[in-house]
């Protein structure tokens, strides 16, 4: 069929959307460690062979110490490339940083060399990411820090080791970062993600957000990114994200950035002028559909037009996959919580427990649990004793202040409060 509405036949169209950069398409990580300085990768091959579920097929290394690996991990074949390169400390300036221990940071400042390991993620991108971290610790057990170039993030070596050793793949928000660019004149913010392209999906963006509401609107972009990654499904038409406080659904849709910017004023932060050299590849801007009719007629609402509603206690749903990941990670790292709290009596901890609910007819439902925070009192032989911090909605037999004994099998999340930090399973390397 003739391409009547799609294509101009008689004009040269200059590209607006640039091809993805290598570091966007693949996952590039730069490793810093003392062994990197001496380019020492002796025994790396043996350590890689020893990784659980890895079947090393080929380990090729050239004279310049660059090389490639072919292996199977969880039944899927992967190819990985590596080489040594220079490291410039100033390159960390623009990165989002995990909390790095002071003694580690002092060492990082002196580094001049890095080990670059890159790979293409497959459809099991959680496993791919996890594998990359496992390989890093196999190459360099003394990893000090890792620059995740694709996500523009500095990772603590301690976190990398914790994540690599864990039986659970890192959570989705480890794969990406949400960056915020502020314009002090207009008091507006441009949110955008990095790191998602390597999973095969596009990056996401929010445009024209007020600085005052930025903290709340962050959850919108974060939820979209998490949902897409956990559900392994792009937003073709729209996606239900949750509910506004009035009960109406929050429905997100997206447009490629080059179409989206046409719906905003020309000089906006994140507009075409800001994308001449970067942010011009595979990225989509988030819009909302406020009604079913809007969705059917593709009437887009800018999130900035409904900021007031988006900051008024919206409820964002977690996908089942996200809840499962949180639960397994909380249990996998429960030992660290126990050890930390047992050794530091001034630490306090909250533990989230999944309780069976009761339906309107009084039947107990063991499938749909209500997840509620308890305050940890003490550990005992089989588990721990804890006090309920709030009244449940759908567990009539329990109320705030009730105390009970639970086991690790009941745990779905936890938080430890130290003197100056709040530590969750994903940041347990700080304990």
């Amino acid at each position, binding site marked *: *069929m*003739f*391409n*009547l*509405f799609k*294509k*101009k*036949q*008689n*004009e*040269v*169209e*200059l*590209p607006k*959307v640039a*091809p993805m950069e290598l570091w966007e*398409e*693949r996952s590039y990580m730069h490793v810093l460690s003392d062994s990197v300085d001496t380019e020492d990768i002796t025994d790396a091959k043996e350590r890689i062979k020893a990784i659980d579920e890895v079947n090393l097929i080929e380990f*090729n290394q050239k004279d310049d110490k660059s*090389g*490639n690996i*072919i292996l199977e991990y969880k039944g*899927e*074949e*992967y*190819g*990985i*490339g590596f080489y040594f390169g220079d490291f410039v400390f100033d390159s960390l300036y623009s990165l989002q940083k995990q909390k790095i221990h002071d003694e580690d940071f002092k060492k990082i400042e002196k580094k001049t060399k890095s080990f670059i390991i*890159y*790979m*293409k*993620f*497959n*459809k099991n991108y959680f496993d*791919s990411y996890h594998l990359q971290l496992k390989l890093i610790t196999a190459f360099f057990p003394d990893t000090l820090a890792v620059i995740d170039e694709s996500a523009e993030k500095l990772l603590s070596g301690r976190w990398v080791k914790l994540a690599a050793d864990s039986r659970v793949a890192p959570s989705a928000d480890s794969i990406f970062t949400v960056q915020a660019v502020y314009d002090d004149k207009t008091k507006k913010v441009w949110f955008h993600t990095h790191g998602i392209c390597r999973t*095969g999906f596009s990056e996401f963006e929010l445009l024209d957000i007020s600085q005052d509401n930025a903290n709340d609107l962050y959850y919108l972009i974060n939820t979209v990114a998490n949902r897409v990654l956990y559900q392994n499904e792009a937003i073709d038409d729209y996606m239900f994200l949750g509910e506004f406080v009035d009960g109406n659904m929050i429905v997100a849709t997206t447009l490629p950035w080059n179409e989206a910017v046409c*719906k905003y004023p020309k000089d906006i932060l994140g507009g075409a002028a800001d994308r001449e050299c970067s942010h011009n590849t595979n990225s989509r801007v988030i819009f909302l559909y406020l009604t079913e009719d809007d969705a059917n007629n593709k*009437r887009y609402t800018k999130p900035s037009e409904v900021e007031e509603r988006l900051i008024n206690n919206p409820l964002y749903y977690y996908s089942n996959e996200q809840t499962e990941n949180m639960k397994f990670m909380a249990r996998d790292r429960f030992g660290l919580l126990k050890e930390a709290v047992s050794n530091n009596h001034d630490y306090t901890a909250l533990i989230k427990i999944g309780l069976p609910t009761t339906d309107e007819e009084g039947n107990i439902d063991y499938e749909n649990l209500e997840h509620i925070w308890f305050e940890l009192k003490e550990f005992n032989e089989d588990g721990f004793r804890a006090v309920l911090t709030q009244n449940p909605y759908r567990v009539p037999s329990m109320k705030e202040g009730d105390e009970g004994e639970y086991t690790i099998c009941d745990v779905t999340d936890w938080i430890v409060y130290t003197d100056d930090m709040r530590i969750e399973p994903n940041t347990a390397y700080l304990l």
Partner: protein
Amino acid sequence: MELLEQCKEWNDNEEYKKVVDALEILPENARTPEMDSELARAYNNLGEPGDYKMFGQALRLLLPYEEYFRGNHRYYFRVAYSYFYLDEHGLALHYFKQALDARPGDEDTIDMMNECVNRLTDGVVEVSMSQKLDFFWEDTQEEIRKYDKNSKDYHEKVADITADGIRDIFQKINVNILSDGRILELEAGDDKSNVFMLEYIKDTVPDTLRKLFDIKVGISPKENIKDIMIYEDEEYDISELRFFVSDDRQIIIYADEFDIPLEVIEQLFIDIFGEIDLMANDFEFDIADEDDFNAPTEDTCKIVLDYNEKEDFLKECVDYNGLRDRAKSKGFRLGTSAKEYLKMYSGYQLQSIEEDIREDIYIGTTCLPSLISEYISSGPFDIMPIMDELYRNGVMAGFFCFSIEGGELTNSSLEYEFEIMNIRNQLMEYILNELDKLGKTKDIAFLEGATGKICGYLDFLIFGSFMDIMNAACEFFEEKNIKLAGYKTFRKISKLVTFKEE
């Protein structure tokens, strides 16, 4: 051992026939993607170069699983391998690159990629469009001789044979048989590059056949369009539609409530204007409904916003019967022939100029804008649908490039640009003269050219006589005061083949 494991082992041991025997007997829905992938591997290995059937079968098995096997080296390699032996080197390169990404440093993949790049650089197609058509017309004439000229359905038979043959060779071309077989209408499809190919087919029709039928390029406008159009078994009444034609070549299609699919509107426009006029005029379209007057949004088109009342707007509209005349009265160029359309060119300017072949261009003109757009926006390993389709059909798309002695973009730029134009014109004339001696002037279509900071460019499509054309170009440049001359295909990955370098 499970069947899949067994097949892998047979494939590893080069016992490909066993894999085919074991898997082909299974119904398609009983095979897993992994089994299909092993079967495709067996087909790929059983196929001999030049025997497209096996490689085509392999590809048909593999392509539906691109998402399923995302990031899998073996999958990409198998797809690329099939494309390679189907002589689709652009697509093969794209998939070999994916295979390399999934297995960095893999020597076999790198070797295959180099082979693809070499072939794409040469640009020499396995069988040129000219050769394909020579064989085809010869066979067609042979076939037609079998039929009785005096039989009642002779013309229809001739048309059928010709149309089937064209469809066989050029799979994307649709052929309509009109006027009891006296006219073959070749659909232009969705890109001007097709029109170039169709005109070439038309030009090569032997005289004996020319007497039997006429070939028309592009779907012609229809005279009696009915109020009801059918699309996917649904009927749509188009008599309610209204059309506003602006002075700046925009057409607004209005319905109180818009529930007609765009495909129906497209068909209607083809029926009213014909494909070539639609392409030549590049109408701009927009759609409006009652809501755009009652509650305009940012998507409401500007022309509608200029009217306060819907009725005032509708007074300026016509129905589909009046649209062609209204368009004509507003200055649309109607009745353009395909040949005239091919000569129409447009200009372009580029901003980010680099000192590299073709990247140095700051101004150019072209008769085939989509080809230039595709080249500019593509990466070295991207799929290039226009280039791939031309290559598939035996057409080489590329450009001559030359750097003149002492010439560069300085303050005497007008003189420099004039000299570039001058050489371009001389080169065209020289090549056409040489081809004229062979009776082959149609084998090249010049598409205009461009001026860059370091080089001048002359763009072309070559349908046949490749060596004659390149020899002529080489001779031409040898006698000129030129520092560098060569040709390159319209792919970023291909290299410059030099005629002369000082």
